[in-house]
């Protein structure tokens, strides 16, 4: 029993990594209607920024600021590319998927060549934080609590932003149909920039949380989770923020518990088979797709 509880708690920590990333991924779907496969890479590069600043100055405030600025900068840099792709008539959303695969490759290469000579980075113990509760093999770390709270706040905040505010409506409007948005007199360029800016803000926030939760980063970190992030989004329902929260956590728990009872490499198989069954039963996702 203790073992099971410990694994569930571990799973929730792992799941909060997925939740955070899938929220960012879904945000891109909602505000720009793109499959942003490279989003996790943006987050990882931002983690490198956190690390670099912490190492150079040990100034927490500065680290937070720089992380967010870097993340925003990266997202803004990608805006013209995706704007171009999505504004051409008759393009498929899958084209953005492929473009972001390309982008992801570029970013991984830049990281593996230029950042810390391709070696992983590691955050200091006082940044990562130790455990706040321990009982036998059950352990809850400070960073997990941050991540859970952060994850929920992020999901709620973005839900509110997107569905209850004018800015959110503008984002979704442009994502759905640029042409009509233009007829409505919505400032396409400004709004689009703003949506990437907000996605960048979120990315910076996620980077900070992940740097505490994982404690390290490497050029491959983004790639190793990107596929699962995509899967979580699909199974929850593409663009469904609430769904992402539940399915992300659930995936973490399933994986952790599965690892507890079967050999490691099969845990992926188990997680994916469960997701497969869910998606076959509910082809539009467990919580319904928010994006067509």
């Amino acid at each position, binding site marked *: 029993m203790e073992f099971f509880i410990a694994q569930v708690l571990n799973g929730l920590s792992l799941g909060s990594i997925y939740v955070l990333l899938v929220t960012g991924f879904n945000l891109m779907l909602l505000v720009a209607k793109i499959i942003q496969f490279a989003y996790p890479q943006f987050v990882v590069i931002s983690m490198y920024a956190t690390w670099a600043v912490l190492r150079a100055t040990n100034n927490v405030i500065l680290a937070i600021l720089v992380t967010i600025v870097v993340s925003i900068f990266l997202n803004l840099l990608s805006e013209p590319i995706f704007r171009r792709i999505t504004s051409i008539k008759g393009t498929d959303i899958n084209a953005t998927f492929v473009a972001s695969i390309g982008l992801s490759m570029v970013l991984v290469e830049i990281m593996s060549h230029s950042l810390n000579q391709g070696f992983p980075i590691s955050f200091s113990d006082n940044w990562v934080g130790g455990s706040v509760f321990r009982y036998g093999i059950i352990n809850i770390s400070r960073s997990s609590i941050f991540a859970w709270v952060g994850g929920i706040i992020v999901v709620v905040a973005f839900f509110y932003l997107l569905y209850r505010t*004018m800015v959110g*409506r*503008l984002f*979704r*409007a442009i994502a*759905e*149909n640029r*042409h*009509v948005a*233009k*007829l*409505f*007199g*919505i*400032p*396409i*360029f*400004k709004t689009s920039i703003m949506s990437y800016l907000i996605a960048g803000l979120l990315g910076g926030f996620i980077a900070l949380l992940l740097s505490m939760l994982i404690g390290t980063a490497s050029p491959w970190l983004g790639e190793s989770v990107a596929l699962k992030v995509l899967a979580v989004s699909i199974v929850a329902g593409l663009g469904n923020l609430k769904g992402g929260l539940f399915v992300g956590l659930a995936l973490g728990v399933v994986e952790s518990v599965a690892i507890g009872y079967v050999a490691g490499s099969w845990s992926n198989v188990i997680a994916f088979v469960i997701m497969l069954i869910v998606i076959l039963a509910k082809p539009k996702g467990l919580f319904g797709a928010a*994006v*067509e």
Partner: protein
Amino acid sequence: MNNNGTTFLKMNNVNVFYDSIQALKNISLEVAKSEFVVLIGANGAGKSTLLKSILNIQAPKGSINFKGKELTKLHTDEIVANGISIIPEGHLIFNSMSVLENLQLGTYHGKKKEQSIENIFGYFPILRERKEQTAGTLSGGEQQMLSIGRGLLSDPELILVDEPSLGLAPKIVNDIFDILVKLNNVGYTILLSEQNAKKSLEIADRAYVLETGNIVMEGQADDLLNDEEIKDAYLGGSI
């Protein structure tokens, strides 16, 4: 022409191209404040293109002046912010958003906000009932009503209306024309493009006739209504 001296909208020698196809040729047109002007012409004559060029959606060559501002240099959103709104052809709305959200988006440039959404519901009660429905599942006519309602919400001084009767039941068409007249009476300037020449000539002050991208005739609506040529070409057999 109830021109009170200041130019409101003035198009001068406007040409519009779709790649190599010239859709508008040397169009010069004027609309005075509070005027109700209608564009008539066959399919493909260039009516929609003309309206789009005013909003700089299809880039025009030439000059378009609105209240002293040169529109050709502005982006669409700036033009809308300056007080022109379009109710586009073919009920273009956001299909995946709710009716209410579509209307709320319409208020983006407007000042009166919620209060005028209530007005819209007053014009089109069915929209109130469908408030939470996804706009894409509305019937064709409901979508058109939504589109009109949304266009009014940006508090425009000049409303460009592109074939509002498309796909609407006669009763609704009448209603909509009534609404347009009402709006005109309270001071909105209206430039309407319409297939239904007779009806629109009846309610408009002035009219331009477009043929393959050229203005071939212009005049007071009443005069055109009685013009033999127009009768033949546009008023045809239809009542």
